[in-house]
């Protein structure tokens, strides 16, 4: 029995490799290259502790990028990530101030706030037909305004609850950080939804041609709306985890996640025009970005240099394999 399974896997391996997206392969090749360069710089770069630490840091971005990928697959974009992250974190911390019930409901409440932002995005994009780039920028500004009014201009002093810290930094299975497990669970759910449910197939369909999907009898607007709500919720959940990691929420905590989440999805071979891309690619993109950030900080690169290298690398990699087909 086990032999046939093994044989089956071995038999399928070449086809799996042959079928793999060149973009995903390039992304993985770049990860190996980065690891190699890093190990030249410092010996501890390849130690299991360091790699596990990187995976843990990557999982926050991974959760956020999962939502972003769903939206990008539709051919849309979600620029409300920064303040959805911050709102999720701040609202979860705020809820914790209201006694034991508040502490228990802190995480769901934070996610709910993110989903609300996502629902507004979804209504705007799906029903009002406003370009997603514009409406998500606008909801981002509104969320920022709400948070500024809420905190009264100060950084909130509310700290993360025990549960949030446990999710972000604890170890349910010895040796494996909880954050990584959460990312794995969310990723598995995403893969299942994208490949095994009609919702997932619809997402790809809408990304290819919404008109055709609509004519096939799909309520495309509902699907778009749900996708944006999920994206908002996942952004907020990422914020909750980040707040648990840092033990408190801060106003600008989400700013550093907009470009990386888009870059991770796009570097992973998902077409920014929608309809094409695999979750494996997004995983590769997230790890790639995290490793790049980590190497730059290990080299004690100042913020300015980091931004420059970061932008250059993204443009360069996109020029490698993210180009639109030559028209005509």
């Amino acid at each position: 029995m086990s032999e046939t399974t093994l044989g089956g896997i071995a038999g399928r391996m070449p086809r799996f490799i042959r079928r793999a997206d060149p973009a995903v392969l390039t992304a993985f090749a770049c990860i190996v290259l980065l690891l190699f360069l890093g190990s030249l710089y410092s010996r501890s770069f390849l130690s299991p502790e360091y790699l596990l630490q990187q995976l843990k840091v990557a999982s926050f971005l991974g959760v956020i990028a999962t939502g972003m990928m769903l939206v990008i697959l539709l051919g849309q974009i979600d620029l409300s990530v920064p303040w959805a992250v911050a709102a999720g974190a701040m609202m979860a911390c705020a809820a914790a101030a209201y006694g034991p019930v508040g502490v228990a409901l802190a995480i769901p409440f934070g996610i709910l706030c993110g989903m609300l932002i996502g629902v507004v995005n979804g209504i705007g994009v799906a029903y009002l037909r406003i370009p997603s780039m514009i409406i998500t920028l606008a909801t981002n500004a509104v969320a920022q305004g709400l948070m500024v009014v809420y905190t009264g201009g100060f950084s909130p002093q509310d700290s993360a609850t025990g549960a949030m810290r446990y999710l972000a930094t604890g170890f349910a299975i010895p040796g494996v950080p909880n954050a990584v497990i959460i990312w794995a669970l969310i990723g598995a759910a995403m893969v299942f939804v994208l490949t095994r449910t009609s919702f997932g197939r619809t997402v790809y369909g809408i990304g290819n041609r919404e008109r055709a999907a609509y004519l096939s009898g799909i309520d495309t607007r509902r699907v778009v709306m749900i996708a944006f709500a999920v994206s908002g919720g996942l952004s907020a959940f990422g914020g909750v985890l980040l707040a648990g990691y840092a033990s408190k929420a801060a106003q600008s905590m989400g700013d550093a996640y907009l470009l990386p989440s888009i870059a991770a999805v796009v570097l992973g071979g998902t077409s920014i025009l929608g309809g094409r891309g695999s979750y494996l690619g997004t995983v590769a993109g997230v790890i790639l970005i995290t490793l790049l950030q980590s190497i730059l900080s290990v080299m004690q690169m100042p913020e300015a240099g980091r931004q420059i290298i970061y932008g250059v690398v993204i443009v360069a990699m996109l020029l490698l394999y993210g180009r639109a087909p030559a028209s005509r």
Partner: protein
Amino acid sequence: MKDWRYWLAEQRGTLLALGIFIVMFVIYTSNHPAGFTANVVQTAANKGVLLAFVAMAQTLVVITAGIDLSVGMIFLLTNCLASWLVVGTPMQTTLGVIAVLAVGLLCGALNGAIVIYGRLQPIVATIATGAVYYGIGLLLRPFPGGSVNEDLADALTGRVFGVVPASIVVLLAIVLVIWVPFSRSVLGRAAYAAGSSETAAYMSGVPIRRGKFAAYTLAGLLAAIGGLFLTFFTYTGEAAYASGNSYTLFSIAAVVLGGVSLFGGKGSAIGAIFGALAFRTIGDLLFVFDFDPLWQPLFQGVILLVAVSLGAFALFRVRNRLEWFL
């Protein structure tokens, strides 16, 4: 139909923006404690002109059905650069101004080259180049500081003949020197045509690539003029990430208020200028009504949300449901 009715239909967005601006400005000045004086107008003009330049830059790119999310960062970068270069003797100052404008032009050209010849999506490409520009700005000014030729700065932010704000005069000059020739040239038409329907434009032999490239490049130049003016107002350079981001955001809001279609091919920079002035005035309304400044970000966000939602009214004109799904 008479000629003037065609003209009216074409300029509807611009005229609407002008109308909104006038109404808002009347409300603003009539509630301002100092009233309608040259000083109030000058301050309002100086604040509005900054956004107007960035909004003009955004318009050029939006007309080609693209978007430039790096305008705010070019604006910051040129501000930081100007705080180093635009100093000293008149000769040095002139060279400094030219250098700053050239850098803006270069940034815009780089965006254009990546988007057009590199065939990357404008959103992702300009977010990434924006990170690069911000990084360079931060390299130039890790801490706020620097200086500027104060004679020039005071001349350009002061008043002409004691009444007219000099910044408005400069804005008008820039419109006449850059926007009017561009929109009437073959390249400008090509930019409009590319935004309206790239395939049709290509089939008709319109130089769409050159047109789009010119639009991106000039957008960089206009953002640099904005950055130069920021230096004239503040006398310093500062690489503030939040400020660059909000200018990008507000430029999109101004473009939408100014009646420029985000799907490309429709609108004018004049409309975007009035959109920018209107947006600034609306933001400042809170102050004359004595609201807590804390509410300003929320207020501006809500205005932005309402402004972009207004575009949804076009849905009522749709006859065939399939037109929902472009």
